[in-house]
């Protein structure tokens, strides 16, 4: 190894001063900074005073033996991951296994060969350094990812302000607030209004998703009558279904009172129901509610185009609409299922399910607990 590279600091522990010298000299010559300890107690003191990168640890020592030293280190939060190599005259498999059980990363038998000791020391120091680099890189990435989501959430929030004017004024113009519009003007202003609304939906979805990803989505668990939530969803979806000549039925074994975030629940339900309407040309939509003593399963079945089995995993990816032809026709944000799954899993402590048969229709549903646990609600 290149002598310029920081070789690291090794603590050598051996009750035999001659052995200690020998090992220390060998490591010093190889470029390591070496500290020495003649027994278990002083080894632990030395480690706690300043942590080395690796410990070369004899087993048979008066007082505290090497296994004990290693177990002490394992019990110590700060030094649990400090690599310990046993170096011992004990060389039965049983001894070695006990060494590994005590938390050692390697085992060298005495009498030792210098190159073997050096190679093992080097290997374990390198491994430890790689593990530390990976752990810190991982932490940094998680933080960056959180910051990214926070940034998107706040940016999207800002995007809404000008939209207030675009949607509000175009809507008011359509309403004739500044005088009657001609048919052509109505058509043009209507386009502005609808595009504004579409942009608003996109932004709302992006804000919700980024907040969940940044762990700063708020959940308000309150007493909720499921029947009321379902009624609100049906009232919203009914006109859309009627426009397409689709039936809309609800089937429930009973109506439970829940403790959950009613608005999020409604949002998820609306999403599945409006998807069902979008992708169904004839037949109808059925919402089925099955309740047991702990959870409720809400599933929306349509008689629409259906989805091939291989395409199902793609459904929950952002902006993944299976055919661009459908995309044009269906409208929507392309974020709906992605957001719904995130909301169900991460905020409502539930899971989503899909069954589908191409040409026959699909069932999209989710199962959530009747009582959202406090801990989840406070995240």
């Amino acid at each position, binding site marked *: 190894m290149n002598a310029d590279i920081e070789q690291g600091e090794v603590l050598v522990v051996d009750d035999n001063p001659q052995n200690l010298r020998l090992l220390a000299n060998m490591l010093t010559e190889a470029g390591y900074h070496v500290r020495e300890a003649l027994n278990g107690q002083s080894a632990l003191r030395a480690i706690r005073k300043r942590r080395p990168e690796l410990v070369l640890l004899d087993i048979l020592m008066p007082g505290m033996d090497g296994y004990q030293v290693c177990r002490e280190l394992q019990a110590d939060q700060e030094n649990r991951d400090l690599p310990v190599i046993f170096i011992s005259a004990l060389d039965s498999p049983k001894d070695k296994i006990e060494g590994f059980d005590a938390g050692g990363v390697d085992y060298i038998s005495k009498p030792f060969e210098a190159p073997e000791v050096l190679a093992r020391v080097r290997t374990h120091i390198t491994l430890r350094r790689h593990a530390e680099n990976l752990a810190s890189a991982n932490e940094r990435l998680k933080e960056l990812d959180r910051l990214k989501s926070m940034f998107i959430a706040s940016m999207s929030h800002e995007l809404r302000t000008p939209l207030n004017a675009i949607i509000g004024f175009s809507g008011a113009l359509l*309403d004739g607030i500044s005088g009657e519009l001609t048919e052509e003007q109505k058509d043009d202003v209507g386009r502005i209004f609808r595009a504004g609304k579409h942009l608003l939906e996109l932004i709302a979805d992006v804000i919700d998703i980024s907040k969940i990803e940044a762990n700063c989505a708020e959940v*308000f668990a309150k007493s909720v009558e499921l029947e009321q939530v379902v009624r609100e969803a049906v009232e919203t979806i009914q006109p859309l279904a009627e426009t397409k000549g689709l039936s809309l039925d609800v089937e429930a074994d009973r109506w439970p009172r829940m403790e959950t975030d009613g608005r999020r629940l409604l949002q998820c339900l609306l999403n599945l129901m409006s998807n069902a309407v979008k992708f169904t040309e004839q037949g109808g939509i059925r919402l089925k509610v099955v309740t047991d003593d702990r959870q409720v399963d809400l599933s929306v079945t349509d008689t629409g185009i259906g989805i091939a089995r291989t395409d199902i995993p793609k459904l929950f990816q952002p902006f993944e609409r299976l055919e661009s032809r459908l995309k044009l026709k269906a409208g929507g944000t392309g974020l709906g299922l992605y957001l719904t799954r995130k909301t169900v899993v991460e905020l409502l402590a539930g899971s989503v399910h899909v069954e589908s048969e191409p040409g026959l229709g699909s069932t999209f549903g989710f199962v959530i607990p009747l009582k959202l646990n406090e801990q989840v609600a406070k995240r």
Partner: protein
Amino acid sequence: MKRALMIEDNPDNSVLISKLLKRAGYQVLLAETGEEGCRRAVEDRPDFVLLDIQLPDIDGLEVLSRIRAETSSRKLPVIAVTSYAMSGDRERMLAAGCNGYIEKPIDPHRVIAQIRGFLND
């Protein structure tokens, strides 16, 4: 003619809502800061208040609590107007004693009906 006090700093919003309110037969008073809004809520005796939550000086919750702290405006109907439904603003404002809550962007087709609903008008 009923008088609305609108506490709103964004001119796009205040122009739009004033237009809609005036057409529906309300008189509109405008305050562009929270401080001014608190003052006018007491001095100008409006029939109700439309309160934006994000104001340049003091936030909507503070404005609401000041309005509620004055004897003369303790029972003044206050409708919060805020821009994001999932943020918890809604829950906070209703818990703090708002009579109603309207989301921005306001829906020009529905906003007057929403206001009347909250006022039992």
